[in-house]
C-alpha cells in the first residue's frame, strides 16, 4: 500500500493520523454552524493541550502557566493589530516569540525543581502575568480588556477559522513529531526519565529543558493569537489560570506522553462535560468525571488504549517496555 507523501509521512504516524482525521472530520463539522464554532474553540484548547504535552509529557516540566503564555500571545496580537495596525500573520511571530523568550528565561530558574514545585512556580508566574495584564490599563485595557480585534486577513468566517485552527494543529503535530524523532527529542526523553543518565550522556540538561519549555510556550502563544483574532475580544478572564489548569487536565486525561494524547483528551473531556447537566452542579460532574477517568486510565486514554493493544498482541506480556517517544509520564520520585 502506498500513498503520495508516504516518504515524508510514513515514519510520522501521528501526523498522518491527525491529518487524515482532520481531512475527514472537517467537511462534516463545517456543515453545522455550532460545530464549526466549537471546532475553533476546541482547536485553541487542543493547541494549549499540545503545549502542555511538549512541556510536561516530553520535557517533564509540569506547567500551570500555559494560559498566561496564551494571554501574552493574544494580547500581543491584539495590541499590534489594533494599536499599531500590523498586517495579519506578522503578529503571529511576536505572539510566539514573546512567551517563548519569557519561558526560556523562567525555565532556567525552575528546571532543577521537582514537578510539583515547578507546577507551583509556573502557577505563581501565571498569576503575576495575569496581575500585570490587569494593571497595564493603557496597553491592555486593564480589567475590561480589548474589544474589536480584527480578523486574520481574509479569514473572517467561523469555517475559515476552523480550517486555520486545525491546520495549525496538524502543522504543530508534524513539527512536534519531527522534534521527537530528532536527537533533541531523544535527549528530552532520556532526561525526563533519568537526569543523571542524561548528564552522563553529555546533555546540557537545563538548556534542553528550557528549550522544550520555550517551544511549548510558543505553541501556547499561537493558541492565544488564534483565540484573540477569532473571539475578537480579550480580557484577563479570557485566558486565565483556569484555562491553564484545564489544559493540563486535558493533556493528562488524553495521555500527556503521547503526541496526540492532549488532542484526544481535549475532544473527549469537552464533549463529556457538554453532555452533562450544567448549572450549579456543573463542577460536581466535572470533578467526578475527572476522578473516574483518572481511575480508569491513569496514563491517559491513549495509554489505556496502548495497554489494551499490547495485551491483545501478547496476552501474557507483563507491563510493556517503554517505547522512546510513546512512553507515558511515569512517576518521578
Amino acid at each position, binding site marked *: 500500500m502506498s500513498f503520495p507523501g508516504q516518504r515524508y509521512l510514513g515514519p510520522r504516524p501521528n501526523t498522518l493520523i491527525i491529518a487524515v482525521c482532520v481531512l475527514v472530520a472537517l467537511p462534516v463539522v463545517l456543515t*453545522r*454552524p*455550532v460545530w464549526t*464554532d*466549537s471546532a475553533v*474553540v476546541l482547536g485553541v484548547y487542543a493547541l494549549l493541550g499540545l503545549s502542555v504535552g511538549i512541556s510536561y509529557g516530553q520535557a517533564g516540566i509540569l506547567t500551570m502557566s500555559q494560559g498566561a503564555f496564551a494571554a501574552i500571545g493574544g494580547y500581543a496580537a491584539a495590541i499590534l493589530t489594533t494599536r499599531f495596525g500590523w498586517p495579519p500573520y506578522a503578529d503571529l511571530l511576536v505572539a510566539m516569540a514573546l512567551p517563548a523568550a519569557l519561558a526560556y528565561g523562567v525555565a532556567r530558574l525552575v528546571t532543577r525543581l521537582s514537578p510539583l514545585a515547578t507546577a507551583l512556580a509556573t502557577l505563581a508566574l501565571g498569576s503575576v502575568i495575569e496581575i500585570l495584564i*490587569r494593571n497595564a490599563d493603557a496597553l491592555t485595557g*486593564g*480589567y*475590561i*480588556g480589548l*474589544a*474589536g480585534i480584527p480578523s486574520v486577513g481574509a479569514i473572517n468566517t*467561523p469555517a475559515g477559522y476552523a480550517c486555520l485552527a486545525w491546520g495549525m494543529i496538524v502543522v504543530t503535530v508534524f513539527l512536534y513529531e519531527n522534534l521527537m524523532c530528532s536527537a533533541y527529542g531523544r535527549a528530552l526523553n532520556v532526561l525526563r526519565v533519568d537526569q543523571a543518565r542524561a548528564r552522563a550522556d553529555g546533555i546540557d540538561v537545563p538548556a534542553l529543558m528550557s528549550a522544550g519549555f520555550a517551544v511549548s510556550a510558543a505553541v501556547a502563544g499561537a493558541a492565544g493569537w488564534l*483565540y484573540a483574532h477569532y*473571539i*475578537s*475580544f480579550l*480580557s484577563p*478572564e*479570557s485566558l486565565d489560570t*483556569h484555562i491553564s489548569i484545564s489544559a493540563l487536565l486535558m493533556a493528562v486525561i488524553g495521555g500527556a506522553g503521547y503526541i496526540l494524547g492532549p488532542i484526544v483528551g481535549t475532544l473527549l473531556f469537552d464533549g463529556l462535560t457538554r453532555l452533562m447537566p*450544567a*448549572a*450549579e452542579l*456543573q*463542577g460536581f460532574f466535572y470533578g467526578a468525571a475527572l476522578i473516574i477517568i483518572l481511575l480508569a486510565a491513569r496514563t491517559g486514554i491513549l495509554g489505556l488504549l496502548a495497554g489494551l493493544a499490547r495485551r491483545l498482541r501478547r496476552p501474557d506480556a507483563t507491563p510493556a517496555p517503554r517505547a522512546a517517544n510513546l512512553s507515558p509520564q511515569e512517576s518521578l520520585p
Partner: protein
Amino acid sequence: MIKSITRRVVLAAAVAGLAAPALAQGADRGPVKLGAVLSLSGPAAVFGIPERDAIQAVLKQMHSTTPDGRRIDLVLVDDKSNPTEAARAVSQVINNDQVVAIIGPSTGSGILAAGPIAQRLKVPLLGPAGTLAITDPKNEFYPWVFRVAPSDIVDIRVILRDMAKSKTKKVGIFYQEDAYGKTGVDEAKIFGPTIGLNVVDTVSAPYTATDLTAQATKLRNAGVEAVFLQVSISALGSSFLKAARQVGLDVPIYANAGLAQRSFAENTGPEAEGLRVLSIGNIPFDPVGGEVELAKMLQAEGKVPQGWGELVGTNALMAAVAAIDAQKGKEITGESMRDTLETLCNFKAYARGKACFAKDKHDGWGEDALVITELRNKQLKTLD
C-alpha cells in the same frame, strides 16, 4: 390536490427553515424561541442564579405565552462566568436553537466576547450587566447589545451624591480586584471631586482574601471621613465591615449595588448597622409595585428573592416579550427583534422606573430604577 400542495408547502417551509434558521419562525403562530445565557456557576452565579429563577418563575406564571398569545420557548445555557463559554453558548443557542433574542450573558466580559457573534448572526443580546463598555457606541456590534440594568456609572453617581449630602469631604474606597471593582473606583475618582468628594485613598483585595484588617487600617490611617465599598462578593463586604470595626474605622460606610444581596444583609453582625447600600429596586425586603408581584411569583416557585438579579433578569425577559407583541402578525427574526427593541418605551417590567430604548440609547433603565437602602437589623430598608 390540496393535500399535496400542503405537503409541498410544509416541505418548502422545512427547507427554508434549514437554509435560513433565523427565518424559521415564519408568519405562522409557532413558538418564539428565546435564549438565556446566564452565569449559573463561577463567581457571577451570585447574580446569574436569581436571574434564571426569576425568568423561569415569570414564564411559568405567563404559561410561557405573551399577553398577545404568542408562545415562548426558553433555551437556557450556563456561561460559567467565563467570556469564552459565553461566546460559545451564544453561538450555540442561535445556531442550534434558532433563538431570536438572548437574555445575557450575565457578565460584562461575557457580553463583550459574545457581541461580535450576535452581530454576525443578527440576534440581539439583552445584557443584565452594568459594565459601561457593553453599550459603547464605538463597538462595531453596538446595534446588537441592549442593557437592561442601570449602568455602573449611573450607580456610582447616585450613591456618591447621597454620600455628598452628609458633608463628607475625604472618602476612602475599598474595591474588589475585578472589572466591576476597578471601573467603580475609576469613575468615583473622576465624579467624586465634581460634587466635593475627594478620594484620598483606595485599597483593594482579590476574591479570595481571608483578612482585610490591613486594608481597613490603611484607610483609617489616611483619616477618611467615609468609606465607599465597590464590592459584589458578599464575603468580602462582610469581612471588610468586621475589619473596619476591629481597627476602629468608625465612619459612615456606603456600598454600591453589588452588596444589595439578601445573604449579605442577613449574614452581617451589628457592625453593619446603618450601612447605606444602593440597590436596583428592593424585592427581598421592601418590594413595591411590580416587585411585589414578582416576589409572589418567586415564592410560588419556592424561591426566596435574593436581590436585584431577579429584576434585571425579568427586565430582559419583559423587553423581549414587549418586542414580540409589538410585532403582532409579523415574521419575527433576530433582526426584527433588534429593530423593534429600539422602538420600545414604557413597556411592562417589574423593576421600578421608566424603561426606554432608542436607536442611540441602548441603556434602557436609568436612575429611577435605583433606590438607596439602609441596613437595619439585618434588613435593607428603602429610604424614602
